[in-house]
């Protein structure tokens, strides 16, 4: 009897405990993406500067992740010789890359550096909550805010500052990406890169030297001065180009901070094997160009088969060649003629846009500023600029194209009035023109993107090459011709 009673009370206890445990069970997965309370010790998130991505997450449980992100207002180069006061997350444009796992509890610390003039906050598109965190993170200069959220949705998300005027904060570079990995992690690849496009609006023209200010009118009219990957012309070219080897799997997290433009993202010479378009869960295959909305992102993956320089562009193509939306992925390795036999891509396509060595131009600019510019410096700079801009038509050897583009070598046109030559460069030339006894009838567009220094240097180079008369053209001479209105020219003979 005693044993039976003991057994019954034991069974009852066990039953009670089970029932209690069942009813008091923590709310796991009641909300999709909520995998329960954080486990283990809090983890300090590893944040990286672009184009690097933090390492993949290997843990298999939700944790508390502490993210500390600092806002710094910083003057940096936006183009050669052109600087801009960027407002940044983590000192870079785009801001630091944040990587967490779905279900993580993220304790977010936003710090605003004491030297900041402006208050800032952050809206993370991956946050479910008012303003994406913006309401809870409004931070005055020299202060810090903290808020906590649970990353319920996996995916790649944009974050940006949402302080009024929002467009200006975004236009000044306040955006970045946060990746919320699925619980099972992502497929392994050889390289992961972080690329983010943005449009920039300056009071000065494209490549106008000096410190440039933000131009609200242009921003409202959606007329950007620069469209760039990772916040600067040349941020991902030359020795800063992305690198990989052949037969590797590459994954790019590509964001578009905007503020205005949608990106038609394309890698010249590659086809995307997989695209998580809009950064969502669906995957598209065999994609040439993918749309990335302003304030959106995508994940693209492809294999590298053939060595070469692969150019990342916004395929609204004038942005690539006239506003700077151009980046390079350099792939090294053995040729694979079966896949691609032809010559290197960069000779024809890029001109000087990817030219790593603009130092001759910098030297000339610096000397011109000091007032001691020499003819040789002009020639050196002019040669670099000629290669990018003029050689496309007039050819690198100045021979032109028979019947189409006049030669510059030993040209009698050049031996004539120098003002006429300058005007041709500035205002263009169309209609019949005879050079060295041959007739040409084509259209030379006005070279609006060149400033006075650049025109002077190019012409000085041309005058001193291929048997031309020599001498130099000064910036002031170009300025004088520019000031005169272009006369409707009928080409002289």
């Amino acid at each position, binding site marked *: 009897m005693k044993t039976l009673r003991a057994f019954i009370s034991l069974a009852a206890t066990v039953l009670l405990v089970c029932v209690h445990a069942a009813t008091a069970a923590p709310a796991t997965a009641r909300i999709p993406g909520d995998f329960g309370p954080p486990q283990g010790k809090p983890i300090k998130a590893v944040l990286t500067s672009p184009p690097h991505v933090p390492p993949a997450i290997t843990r298999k449980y939700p944790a508390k992740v502490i993210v500390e992100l600092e806002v710094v207002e910083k003057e940096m180069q936006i183009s050669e010789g052109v600087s801009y006061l960027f407002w940044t997350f983590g000192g870079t444009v785009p801001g630091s890359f944040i990587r967490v796992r779905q279900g993580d509890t993220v304790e977010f610390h936003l710090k605003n550096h004491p030297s900041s003039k*402006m208050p800032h*906050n952050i809206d993370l598109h991956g946050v479910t909550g008012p303003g994406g965190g913006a309401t809870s993170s409004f931070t*005055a200069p020299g202060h810090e805010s903290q808020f906590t959220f649970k990353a319920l949705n996996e995916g790649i998300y944009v974050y940006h500052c949402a302080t*009024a*005027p929002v467009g200006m904060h975004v236009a000044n570079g306040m955006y970045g990406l946060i990746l919320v990995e699925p619980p099972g992690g992502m497929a392994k690849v050889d390289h992961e890169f972080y690329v983010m496009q943005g449009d920039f609006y300056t009071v000065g023209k494209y490549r106008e030297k000096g410190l440039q200010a933000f131009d609200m009118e242009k921003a409202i009219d959606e007329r950007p001065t620069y469209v760039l990957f990772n916040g600067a012309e040349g941020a991902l070219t030359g020795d800063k180009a992305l690198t990989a080897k052949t037969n590797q799997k590459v994954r790019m997290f590509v964001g578009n901070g905007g503020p205005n433009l949608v990106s038609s993202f394309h890698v010249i010479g590659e086809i995307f094997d997989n695209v998580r378009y809009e950064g969502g869960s669906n995957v598209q295959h065999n994609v040439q160009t993918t749309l990335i909305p302003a304030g959106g992102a995508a994940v693209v993956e492809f294999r590298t088969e053939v060595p070469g320089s692969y150019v990342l562009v916004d395929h609204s193509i004038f942005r690539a060649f006239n506003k700077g939306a151009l980046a390079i992925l350099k792939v090294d390795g053995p040729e694979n003629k079966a896949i691609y036999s032809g010559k290197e891509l960069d000779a024809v396509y890029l001109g000087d846009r990817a030219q790593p060595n603009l130092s001759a131009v910098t030297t000339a600019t610096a000397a011109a500023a000091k007032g001691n510019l020499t003819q040789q410096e002009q020639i050196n700079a002019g040669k670099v600029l000629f290669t990018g801009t003029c050689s496309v038509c007039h050819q690198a050897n100045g021979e032109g194209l028979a019947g189409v583009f006049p030669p510059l070598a030993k040209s009698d046109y050049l031996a004539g009035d120098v003002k006429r030559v300058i005007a041709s460069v500035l205002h263009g030339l169309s209609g019949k023109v005879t050079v060295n006894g041959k007739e040409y009838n084509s259209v030379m567009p006005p070279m609006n993107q060149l400033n006075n220094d650049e025109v002077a240097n190019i012409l000085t180079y041309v005058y001193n090459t291929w048997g031309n008369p020599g001498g130099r053209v000064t910036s002031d001479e170009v300025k004088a011709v520019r000031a005169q209105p272009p006369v409707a020219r009928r080409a002289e003979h």
Partner: protein
Amino acid sequence: MTLRSRSHWTRVVSRGLFSLCIGAAVPAVARAAGYVSIAAGEFASVLAGDTEVKPSSVPAFAMRTSPVTNREFLEFVKRNQGWARGRVSRVLADTQYLNHWRTPRELGDAALADQPVINVSWFAAQAFCEAEGAGGRLPSWLEWERVAAADTTHTDARPNPAWRAEILRWYSTATSVTLANTGGTANVYGIQDMHGLIWEWVDDFNALLVAADSRSQGDPDKLQFCGAGAISLKDRDNYAVLMRIALLSSLKAVDTTRNLGFRCVIPVSKGPK
């Protein structure tokens, strides 16, 4: 006499009388900067307020010609030891209060005498202004905005893009290591340094009630702001002013920042002296 010259003389006389009052009322040791009187007038604030369409009426007041300098604030601290760094309560000034001075009672090389004083809290600024006497206080937002709208020739230069460009130029430059001294070009009222030097405290900075997430402007949260919702700004295009409001609304009274100083106003006395 034409109406115009009558008001002109009234201004001259009242300015004279006012200066006399100020001179008599405040001990000579209190301050070095001058005050200029600003006549009463109407002003269309950028804050829409509560669906006000008509411009607000701003009574007359006298304003300091330039922000309070390190030297002036040091004198104040010496006379009011309770406001020295390290002695002032943490609810009245935060840990960065006057941290650019070498010691609590000495400026040192990082704080030049004629630079505007920075790293001061709203309470400290108010205490200084009250010590000026004659009801001295921080300017209200409306008083500040009215004087700031002027350039060298017009009392309301806001339609002029050059006025806005001047302000935006300051936003587009990094905070330099050396802060300039006070005493820049005066505007038409005779007031200097309203733009381009530092942010400035206002008396009712905590009346700006701008929602922290500025995209929700015009989305009234009744529970948070008791009925009328967060302030909506009348002229969104005047974002130069908007950014100043954003900065002020991000602050608590106890906060100090490296780019924030102040100046004082003295309301014009209503009754006979």
